[in-house]
């Protein structure tokens, strides 16, 4: 198969780029979250907002800051969406309906970027730039701040539940990390052919004699942070399949690189923050292992797609862009569902059944391999705590992770964390396929219809935001249901993570000994991967059996 060589080639390029960039960026991130110094621009913003960036916040204060900040974000974005027709650069679009504005506000504040609307047919430039793109930056910042707080909690010794300062973490993430990288990335994207303008839609005459409105806009700037911050909300409805967002195989691989960059770098930074690089390496290895397996499976499923037409086309080409091919689409699909990005460069609805199943399973793992920016790291660390608890008992000691004992209170928090997302997904799917308003949204019936609904609630609850397609989700029922999934799926875990960070920070950090379970060895990497698959993955097996698995076997 001639297509195997480019498939492997682009993976090799991607891996090489990540291997070069991740340790470097990880070191920088560790510095950002531990440095006592503030930049001038940061100091100015703290003064303007009357914040004390040096206050070491208790986890409760930290959590309240996160929730307060996000609530303001949701309210602001809701109002912005409702009133967009009164504002400039609206391109004449009306204000969003109430349920739609709620869904979109929650979606972008939770770093999910589920889009019930078509960007080019519902939102003006100002809303996209000043509403959505701003949230693309700060919602990513919130995730990274929470992860930094957890790492700090683990690194600290008897600090009374204090985990750092949310405002400093947020501002630094945006100012020192996201803005500079996004700026460079946007320029690169423009150079590679992504559009960037503020023009009115241009009307062109088509070959068939009709007319078509071509909408340009500030695409490259939104595209850069969309991938970098694992947001995924496209400027256009077609998202990264649209030639203005992702014109060539080169932009494709560059965008994949961008969306994997920070989640992996956060894992590396984690090792440095806790003072043991090997710990970050182990977490990173688990992420890479799980992602690697899903890339391999998804690529295999799409390239070996069953049937006559895929055989002639050299793979399952339905719903894919010819310029990316099956391999480029599968790689993007695995990366966008493995991170909580949710951008798509192909229609996941048209993936082969096993391929769609892999994409769904990636999200079901809880977005940990490598997951969203920040959220991937804290999700994986929560699973690491579960693993340490199970495995730690097997070495005959009260389990501890990085010198912090996992006692009753810690395990309560972790247990609730592990419970939250499956509860949302499974309750969500039960409601969606039982209520008549849910069923009308499904394009297909039978197992594929189940997959469409399952994909939607899974994507929302895990804050991924990618859509399977096929589902008509812009109805009050779906907007409300998925909005709730996104909101609870983001902030319940965050509060639990911060509570755990507080517990860890208050604990004494015990020195490691020969009797402590080593958490940096290959055995632990394998075990943590196993726990992710068995403890989290098994939860979804029954419903997967009735959706993608039945479909794959027919």
């Amino acid at each position, binding site marked *: 198969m001639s297509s195997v060589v480019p498939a492997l080639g682009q993976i090799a390029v991607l891996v090489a780029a990540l291997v070069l960039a991740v340790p470097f960026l990880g070191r920088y991130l560790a510095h950002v979250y531990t440095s006592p110094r503030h930049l001038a621009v940061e100091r100015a913003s703290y003064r303007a907002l009357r914040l004390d960036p040096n206050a070491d916040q208790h986890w409760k204060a930290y959590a309240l800051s996160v929730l307060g900040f996000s609530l303001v974000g949701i309210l602001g974005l809701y109002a912005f969406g409702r009133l967009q027709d009164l504002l400039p650069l609206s391109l004449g679009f009306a204000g969003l309906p109430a349920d739609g504005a709620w869904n979109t506000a929650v979606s972008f504040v939770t770093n999910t970027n589920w889009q019930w609307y078509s960007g080019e047919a519902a939102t003006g430039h100002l809303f996209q730039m000043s509403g959505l793109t701003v949230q693309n930056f700060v919602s990513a910042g919130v995730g990274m701040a929470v992860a930094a707080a957890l790492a700090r909690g683990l690194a600290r010794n008897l600090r009374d539940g204090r985990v750092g300062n949310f405002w400093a973490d947020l501002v630094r993430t945006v100012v020192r990390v996201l803005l500079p990288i996004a700026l460079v990335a946007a320029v690169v994207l423009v150079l590679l052919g992504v559009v960037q303008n503020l023009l009115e839609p241009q009307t062109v005459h088509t070959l068939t004699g009709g007319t078509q409105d071509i909408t340009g806009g500030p695409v490259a700037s939104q595209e850069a942070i969309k991938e970098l911050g694992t947001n995924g909300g496209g400027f256009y409805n077609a998202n990264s399949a649209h030639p203005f967002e992702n014109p060539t195989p080169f932009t494709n691989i560059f965008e994949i690189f961008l969306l994997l960059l920070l989640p992996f770098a956060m894992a590396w930074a984690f090792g440095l923050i806790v003072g043991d690089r090997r710990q970050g390496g182990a977490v990173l290895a688990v992420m890479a292992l799980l992602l690697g397996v899903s890339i391999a499976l998804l690529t295999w499923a799409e390239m070996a797609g069953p049937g006559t037409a895929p055989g002639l086309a050299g793979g399952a080409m339905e719903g894919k862009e010819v310029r990316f091919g099956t391999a480029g689409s599968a790689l993007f699909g695995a990366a966008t569902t493995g991170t909580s990005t949710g951008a798509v460069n192909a229609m996941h609805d048209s993936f082969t059944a096993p391929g769609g199943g892999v994409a769904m399973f990636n999200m079901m793992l809880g977005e940990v391999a490598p997951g969203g920016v920040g959220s991937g790291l804290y999700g994986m660390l929560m699973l690491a705590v*579960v693993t340490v*608890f*199970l*495995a*730690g*008992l*097997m*070495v*005959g*000691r*009260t389990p501890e992770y990085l*010198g912090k004992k*996992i*006692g*009753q209170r810690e*395990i*309560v928090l*972790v*247990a*609730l964390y*592990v*419970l939250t997302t*499956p*509860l949302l997904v*499974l*309750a969500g*799917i*039960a409601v969606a*396929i*039982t209520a008549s308003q849910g069923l009308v949204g499904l394009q297909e019936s*039978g*197992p594929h219809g*189940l997959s469409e609904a399952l994909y939607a609630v899974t994507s929302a609850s895990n804050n991924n935001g990618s859509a399977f397609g096929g589902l008509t989700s812009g109805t009050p029922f779906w907007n409300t249901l998925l909005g709730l999934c996104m909101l609870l799926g983001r902030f319940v875990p965050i509060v639990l993570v911060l509570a755990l960070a507080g517990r860890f920070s208050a604990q*004494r*950090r*015990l*020195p490691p*000994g*020969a*009797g*402590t*379970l*080593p958490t940096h*060895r290959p*055995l632990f990497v394998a*075990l943590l991967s*196993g726990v992710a698959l*068995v*403890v989290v993955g*098994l*939860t979804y*097996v*029954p*419903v997967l*059996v*009735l959706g993608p*698995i*039945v479909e794959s*076997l*027919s």
Partner: protein
Amino acid sequence: MNVDLMGALPGAFRKLDPRELLATPVMLVVEIGAAATTVMAVLDPSTMAVGVAIWLWLTVLFGNLAESVAEGRGKAQAASLRALQQETTARRLPRGGAESDGGYDVVSSTSLRVGDVVLVEAGERIPGDGDVIEGVASVDESAVTGESAPVIRESGGDRSAVTGGTVVLSDRIVVRITSDPGQSFVDRMIALVEGSERQRTPNEIALNVLLGSLTAIFVVVVVSLYFVADYSDAHQPVVVLTALLVCLIPTTIGALLSAIGIAGMDRLVRRNVLAMSGRAVEAAGDVDVLLLDKTGTITYGNRQASALLPLDGVTDAELAEAALLSSLADETPEGRSIVTLVGGFETGAERLPQPPEAVLVQFSATTRMSGIDLPGREIRKGAASAVTAWVGGSNAQLDALVEQVSSTGGTPLVVAEKQRLLGVIHLKDVVKEGMRERFDEMRAMGIRTVMITGDNAVTARAIAEEAGVDDFLAEATPEDKLALIRKEQEGGRMVAMCGDGTNDAPALAQADVGVAMNTGTTAAKEAGNMVDLDSDPTKLIEVVEIGKQLLITRGALTTFSVANDVAKYFAILPAMFVVAFPQLDVLNVMRLSSPESAILSAVVFNALVIVALIPLSLRGVRYTPSSAADLLRRNLLIYGVGGLIAPFVGIKLLDLVISLIPGV
């Protein structure tokens, strides 16, 4: 295995009361499932529904059985202890009054209170726990310790504590009572071995939380599956969904969890160690630093003469004779070992001189010498400084010999006759056999051993090296011990120690695991969180191992339980949906004969695996001291990988049998 299954059955049935199961959410869910399937089986009888209902009840029963069996093992012991509690009469002396006043009143032992003073004579039962404040007696403590040889109890010192219910064999003692009725040592022992006072330990609670949340997740899975199945036109009856739920929730560990805890305490009791709380047993598994007294733990306790080192101009025979004569008055083990050693020499002493021609000079703390005065001869042996002072000066060769002996961990005894230095006896502290291997094991487990001794640093270092301990604390006072424990704890390490004296009490209380010797004082026993009835300081090592074994058993069975789920999915899911979606038959990798048989086989396997693992939960997972990484690899292989594979085999075998039942 002397597991009394029949005897435990009534208890197992009593525990079917749902209120008993509130503490274990996993088993409560199983019982609710059993009740639900019973109702369904009555409303709509079928072989499978009846089968599932019966086996779900059996699942709950098997879990209860494990707990009953574990509790039953302590019952026999409790019965023999109860015999000690029979009411006796006591002769109570007036408070503050001395025995010599002659007056006492006869009262019931149950009316004695803390601070009462009683008189006990030979043949009488001691009416309550207390300290001997006057006299010395031999006491039969076999009912408590199982040791038939009588022990000496005397006022003052570290052997003053007596236990209520034990019998005075000789002499008479005056005892001050230290516990009120119902709170005596034996009362606490009974409560402990019966498990009636069992409070769940922190780690057990944490594990229960995790198991509870896994159960909650699977409840959500199964409830949502009901709706998803309906959507898929593959309606599932309640019986089948309940069967799936029970197979998925971690019933194996849920059923055996409390039995593991009770059995862990029981293993300690069998080694004659009483833990005052389960928390202490768990803490033992976490110990990082072990403080061990040199004497009696690392060495045999008695120093023994190993060599005679004469000065120039003194023959071996001369020194040997002097050493022998000077030791005649010395009844200490050291003195006797000198006699034994010298027995190999030609001493020239035809006949051992006896009083009155000989005057024996006893060792005293002030002279620090012992010896003998014969007509015309004065022989002394003792500490170098004391003997050289007696002689009126030392010499360079003697100093060198003394230094040489000290530096190898020995104790030098200088022998002199009438102002003339003869030589040095090398007293050696003999390290118990096998200690070095033990300490190597400890090191592999990540536990640091510290030897505590009153010896000077030079001697201590030599013995520490010989025994292979990691560190030592020389010339240790009780305050030093306490300070060392505090220092280790501040570094986040858990410390275990044992002790018997009243001056050990603060350190015993400070240590995370403090094992008091039963021969010790009441203060020491109160301060520690364990009591070793055999008074064997080496036991500390076993206590640590039992603590680790307890945690390992929990972890191993949890892993096994969770790993089992994979096979159960392969058994049940195809069975549930193969009618609606025939293509799912390829997932029936075990080729189970029919959907009904598959579901029933999984449920039966789930129940039988509990019974199969009861012996393991009572005995504990095999534990060999090794590093955490090795332990993890081994247990993961057996219980993780084994847990993945075992149910595939078990369910297949059960299916072969069950498929023979008509209607399945």
